[in-house]
């Protein structure tokens, strides 16, 4: 019982101090955040296909996490967790495990989903950097 109380106190203390720390830290970019967003978007090659460029879009969760340096206050964090959990869809056919051989292929390389004009790494166990 004593241990439980001690644990509880330690946890509350951690939350309290991290909440304070979050208040103290300003959002990244400070007063230049808007300028920075504009500059970032203007920095990409004009010949990037449109669908590549959609990868720069941010949803509310991404925007909020940026604001709090990936460490939002618990209340906001819980909201985001619920919001995102609600978007999870199970496979319609009810099969939860797919083709594991295909999965293994994906796991063996680190380059899935890479885009860009510079030649991506060849697939294989050393394709990481």
């Amino acid at each position, binding site marked *: 019982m004593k241990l439980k109380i001690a644990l509880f106190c330690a946890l509350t203390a951690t939350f309290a101090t991290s909440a304070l720390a979050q208040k103290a830290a300003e959002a*990244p970019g400070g007063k230049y955040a808007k*300028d*920075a967003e504009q*500059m970032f978007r203007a920095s990409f*090659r004009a010949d990037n296909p449109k669908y590549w460029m959609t990868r720069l879009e941010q949803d509310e969760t991404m925007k909020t996490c940026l604001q709090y340096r990936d460490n939002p206050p618990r209340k906001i964090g819980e909201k985001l967790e619920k919001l995102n959990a609600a978007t999870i869809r199970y496979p319609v056919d009810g099969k939860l495990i797919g083709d594991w051989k295909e999965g293994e292929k994906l796991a063996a390389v680190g380059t899935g989903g890479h885009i860009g004009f510079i030649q991506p790494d060849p697939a294989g166990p050393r394709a*990481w950097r």
Partner: protein
Amino acid sequence: MADELAKYREALADGNPADLLEVKGESLWAEKRGPKNASLEQCDMGLGPGKLEGAYASLPKYFKDTNKVMDVESRLVHCMMTLQGFTQEEVTKNWYSKPGKESDIEALVTFIGAKSNGMKINVPATHPEEAKMAKMGEYIFYRRSGPQDFSCSICHGQEGKRIRLQDLGNLTTKEGAGFAMKTWPSYRVSQGAVWTMQRRLIDCMRQARWPEPNYLADSIIALETYLQKNATGTVMETPGIKR
């Protein structure tokens, strides 16, 4: 395992192929080239014309003549255009090397970098334009997007993270940023080439599954300013060598 990696790195450091590139960069620097048949010896990398000792370690910085914060690569390209008369396209066509295609920029940056070896990184970003660039770099560092929900900070914003066996530095601290920044430009054994910081960061964006930035883009220079500011005070060990 980390010890084994350290041993591997130590073994690599004995005879760095980047040394050859440094020598090539040195002769490129002094050679009269381009439509104006001029060398780069009057190039001002921030400490005055031709003054290269410690220049790399104090970049990016604000330059009055261009009214821009420039990194080593954008400043070098500027010099090759203004002093030697090359067009930007000519200079940046081979900004990184490919098998069978060497890059003058890689050689020159390796040479300029080596002139800061043993010196402290010194980017306090006190000029308002530099301070702004560092802040914008910070914004980009934490900005999340893409199919994997990545930002720089996802991998480099905490202590004790790794990808497979590779330790990931916490680039928000002096120690982490210093460890990362002090060894560039660096010879990449797995790539068989020297990588500049622009190449490194543009590749980070590739790994984040984002589209490809322009070479010398302001967003890359902003990230460099942010990282060099965090790393300020760390002693340079360049050219580096990595797996």
